[in-house]
């Protein structure tokens, strides 16, 4: 197996029902990699991070990270692992093995997004030299969630190593056959409904109006600005590459942000697109879709009777105490520009 690890992405589920069970499967998997010159990555809940760290030798080539730092957004998780793997390989590892316990939040939408990404990653990370094992505590999974896990992972880990998962479904078959389920919010009146965007002024105006309704509903300025930016990328794309008129609808509640952008074009298959960043110095980078995926929780693209629709959503985090302070700082007269300008003057003076 270590041979295959060095070639590309291997993706297995680790189903466990106790800490002992978890350790009994995860530890041999990591040890086999380490003895073959591979690096280990451990990104689990704290107790399991500790269990594995204690069971491995102190000088083992293993990076242990808190999972909350990695499991932010589905599309972001893939990027993080790409970076980590490239770093470990650059440091001389002959391959990389990951034991993780995905954190997917408590909302049903969040589970669906995560389960879909588990499937998508089989395609989008296929070139990554990583053998990834995703730990799931079966005591916390409903039957349908367990089914989702089995369908998304080509392999299941056992104490003897990975074996093929009989329930596995190829990502294009699992996700690509039908439009995503309508979001319940879509049945409610939208907070913003902009029809007939046909020119550049309309695109700029739409951006401003989306920003306003999102900011009114979402106290977290980072989440709100990112969502607005993601929508802006999609609207721009619809305007330039789809077909005007573009129709934008936004639902902004105290818990979720949802937006649909529909154009009259024939659309494109975006199921596996926009998961790798591309090079801004290159001729055409496809960076817009990548940026949109990174800055919202979920992005779906599908053909509808009315044209081609991209749907974006993000959860609105509860207002955190202390957010007022951050906002006040952000609202400082020059937004902190003075310090930056002084540093720039130094840099300009020092080298000129």
């Amino acid at each position, binding site marked *: 197996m270590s041979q295959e690890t060095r070639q590309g992405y291997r993706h297995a589920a680790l189903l466990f029902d106790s800490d002992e069970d978890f350790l009994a499967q995860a530890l041999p998997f990591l040890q086999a990699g380490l003895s073959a010159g591979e690096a280990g990555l451990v990104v689990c809940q704290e107790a399991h991070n500790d269990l594995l760290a204690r069971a491995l030798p102190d000088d083992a080539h293993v990076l242990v990270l808190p999972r909350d730092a990695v499991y932010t957004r589905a599309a972001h998780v893939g990027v993080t692992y790409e970076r980590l793997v490239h770093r470990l390989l650059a440091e001389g590892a002959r391959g990389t093995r990951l034991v993780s316990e995905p954190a997917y939040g408590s909302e049903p939408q969040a589970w669906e997004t995560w389960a879909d990404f588990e499937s998508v990653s089989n395609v989008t990370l296929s070139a990554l030299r990583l053998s990834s094992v995703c730990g799931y505590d079966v005591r916390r999974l409903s039957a349908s969630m367990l089914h989702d896990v089995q369908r998304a992972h080509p392999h299941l880990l056992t104490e003897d190593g990975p074996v093929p998962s009989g329930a596995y479904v190829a990502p294009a078959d699992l996700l690509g056959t039908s439009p995503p389920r309508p979001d319940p919010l879509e049945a409610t009146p939208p907070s913003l409904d902009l029809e007939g965007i046909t020119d550049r002024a309309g695109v700029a105006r739409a951006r401003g109006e989306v920003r306003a309704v999102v900011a009114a509903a979402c106290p977290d300025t980072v989440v709100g600005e990112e969502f607005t930016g993601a929508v802006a990328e999609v609207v721009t794309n619809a305007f330039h590459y789809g077909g005007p008129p573009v129709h934008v609808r936004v639902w902004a509640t105290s818990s979720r942000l949802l937006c649909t952008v529909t154009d009259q074009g024939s659309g494109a298959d975006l199921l596996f697109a926009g998961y790798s960043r591309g090079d*801004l110095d290159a001729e055409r980078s496809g960076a817009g879709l990548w940026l949109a995926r990174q800055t919202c929780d979920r992005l779906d693209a599908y053909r509808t009777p009315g044209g081609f629709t991209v749907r974006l959503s993000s959860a609105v985090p509860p207002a955190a105490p202390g957010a007022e302070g951050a906002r006040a700082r952000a609202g400082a007269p020059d937004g902190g520009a003075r310090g930056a*300008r002084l540093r720039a003057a130094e*840099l300009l003076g020092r080298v000129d």
Partner: protein
Amino acid sequence: MWGVDGATTGPEWDGHLMLLHESAAERQAGVAAWVQRGLDLGEKVLYAEGPDEQEGSLITALEAHEVDVPTALRDGRLTLVPLAEFYPAEGQRLVVDRALAEGFPAVRMSVGVLGALTILSPRHHLSVEQRLEELVRSLPVSVLCQYARSSTRGPALRDAIGVHVPGIRETCFRTGESELGLVLQGEVDACNAEVLEAAVTAFTDVPPRVLSLDLAELTFIDAAACRALAQGSRGLRASGGRLLLVAPPPQVERTLCLLGLDDLPGFQVVGESP
């Protein structure tokens, strides 16, 4: 933003400016704000109406924007000049000297480039632009050059931006200068990324060194505009120069970093804290 809806009339209308307009309404709003600024400062305002403008359309537009036109005309503070008089063979220095001789503290002049191109070749016009730039740098002169976005494309757009790098006035985006370098303000996206790229290309077309873009008042940037920053500065960065991206607001900085602009050789984001 100066936009159609609410143009302000501050110092942003001084200097050698390029009004890159997308519509007649946008053009008139910009011109009205610019004229008002000159009248507020007691300057002599010279305006050359081109054949692409309806006769008297300036007056109508100014009045719509509540500029007191009759008084300004009567006092000689606002003068409509024929194109040929605006572009005398001896150059604009003559026009400026004449106005200053009348006792005005400063002169501002505006013309539509489409009109100018009816009597000048594009090449001649570009050299006039370069001489206007010298005038603005050496005398109390402001110039507003009106370019229609629809007819200013490709190399023509790049040439025009090249002589107005810190004076671009576009629908959502404008440039300025500070002692540190070029200042970018407003919103840049796929619709005006070409303008941004041309400005950055012209700004960084110098021997390799360290230059800075002040982003403190850039309120939005998208992926296309980040690409424009990368492409426009490629020559500078490839030859060993560096471009500082100074004081980006948080949402702009996040976008720059997500797209990895700060990882590209030759870029350095200079934020609030080291």
